């Protein structure tokens, strides 16, 4: 298929277009929401633009996830080397136990340490986001067969070269799956972060819930749901790209 046609046939593409279109069109839907919910005033969230809310939330999630990915992969690399072997079990245990902690609780507990605003949300997202990344990166690095590593070392590669050119590329799809989980949870938790002062697409939802204004809840909910879905679809596509050709799913 030629490239433009392939783009048009991709669900990721048109979901992304729908999301951006709604993000831009939402401020102009006042008449529509007024007709559906005559009692609600204002019919559209107006304290900040939806684009501004989206950019703020995307920035929070991106900052937290990028930091968590860098540190998470570093931890996984350390505990899968001979020097860090001892710490592998405890890193794995921390990642598993930590994930049983409810994200909303982690967020709430970050507030006393950091105060209101975007900071507790970024830190909670970072801490919670580390766990699936560490877990998956350890699993991914350990699925690289020993024979492959030995062959690479036999070709004269140094330890760092084996890691950078063989192990990490082979583990990449599994690591990316961990980052995907982390980002999905991050978007959801960042939405709740508006209760502790972060500016996100969740802000209209909570304003609407507090003032019993259903249109505001809907506007925030639709946009944040689409944001999460588009992001997840983009990760799914990236995962397919990274999988080595011919490898089984």
């Amino acid at each position, binding site marked *: 298929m030629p490239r433009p046609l392939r783009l048009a046939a991709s669900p990721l593409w048109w979901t992304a277009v729908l999301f951006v279109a709604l993000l831009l069109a939402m401020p102009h839907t006042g008449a529509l929401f007024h007709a559906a919910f005559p009692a609600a005033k204002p019919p559209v969230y107006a304290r900040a633009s939806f684009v501004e809310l989206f950019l703020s939330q995307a920035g929070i999630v991106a900052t937290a996830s990028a930091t968590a990915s860098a540190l998470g992969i570093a931890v996984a690399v350390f505990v899968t080397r001979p020097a860090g*072997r*001892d*710490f*592998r*079990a*405890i890193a*794995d*245990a*921390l990642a*598993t*136990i930590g*994930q*049983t*902690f*409810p*994200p*909303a*609780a982690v967020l*709430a*507990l970050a*507030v*006393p*340490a950091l105060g209101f605003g975007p900071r507790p949300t970024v830190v909670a997202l970072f801490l919670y986001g580390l766990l699936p990344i560490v877990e998956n990166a350890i699993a991914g690095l350990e699925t690289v067969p020993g024979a492959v590593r030995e062959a690479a070392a036999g070709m004269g590669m140094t330890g760092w070269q084996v890691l950078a050119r063989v192990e990490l590329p082979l583990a990449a799809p599994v690591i990316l799956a961990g980052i995907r989980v982390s980002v*999905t949870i991050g*978007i*959801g938790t960042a*939405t*709740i972060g508006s*209760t*502790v002062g972060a500016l996100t697409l*969740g802000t209209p*939802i*909570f304003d*609407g*819930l507090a003032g019993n204004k*259903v249109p505001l*809840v*809907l506007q*925030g*909910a*639709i946009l*944040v*749901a689409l944001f*999460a*879905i588009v992001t*997840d679809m983009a990760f799914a596509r990236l995962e397919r790209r990274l999988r080595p050709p011919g490898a089984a799913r």
Partner: protein
Amino acid sequence: MTLSGAPARCRASSAFGWNPDRIALALVAVGAIAVAGGGFVSLAPNRLVSGRPVALWAAAGIPATAALALIGLALAGIAATPPRRMRHYAVAALAALLLIAVLLAAGTAARDLAAGAPPLARVSLGAGFWIAAAAAALAVLDGLQRADAGNFVRFLVGAAIAAAIAAMAAGGWFDALSLAREYASHRAVFGTALTRHVALVAGSVLPAILIGVPLGILACRRKRAEGAIFAVLNLLQTIPSIALFGLLIVPLSALAVAAPALARLGVGGIGAAPAVIALILYALLPVARNTAAGLSGIEPTIVDAARGMGMTERQIFWRVEVPLALPVLVAGLRIVTVQTIGLAVVAALIGAGGLGDFVFGGLGQDATDLVLLGALPTILLALVADFLLKAAAAALRR
């Protein structure tokens, strides 16, 4: 709560022949630094103001500090001996003792500080306490892991520590802590919130099993349905919880208006109805996925053998496929239960009640210990559910 991976005791000794428990040593160091850094507890003029950090020795006195230091040194000493199974048990036992000692010290610190302060003053647990307690708990876990202790031993150790903490709490040891005072002033609603939380989880997980298991069977039997089922369930799982709650408000309030009988039953845009529906929708994916995975993981030759023995399709399903797929399903149930316990916290935001009421109520009032009163039981619930269902899956696999 199990530690997975190769047991470290299988490794060869290091070049110098000295093979200490580096994790226990690291954890002792982390705990010691956290306590030495001050801020074991904090003292605030009232419950809504953040306090100033108070060091362990200033709050609980020199003898308590020395006792903690001694246990920590003993733990480090044991950790430095040659690796044997007994060492791992000794590390776990000493770490458990250290954990209880840290809790005792916190109670003493709170009582002594509160005694010399005005009645409105609050003593909260500080970073030093939390880090030291977490380090001790991790050392217990790692010791048990290295000793290759079974689920029963782990359960006994966990129950013994829990019983010790419960006895201290019942004996009033923690009464001066702000957390205990929050509990005392919310005692009447705490039980209701806890029951409500468990009811929300059970009321969501059970229907999710009833719907998700047939969906999983369908996905496994009809490959064409599989793609559609998992695409929809995966999409639902991606949507942030508060957005799904919000999206359900409109259809449910419309339904309540259209059918007043349903409204009298409690169906409405706000409350338990949207919460339970959303929690069920979230729970469907892990249930259906693990059902399908469990069924498709069965060797076709086993089913063929059963057929050759003259079993009917129904018998094959109930006597062969269900028992073989059950461990995988229970593993999915663990994911679902832990996930639902966490998501039910958020449900408090749409008026569904539960422990989330304390979490968000505490956030609203800026009362940290009220947040903890909601968050700690939630975390404990999740950890207990995780342990029990993991043990159940392991028992079924045998």
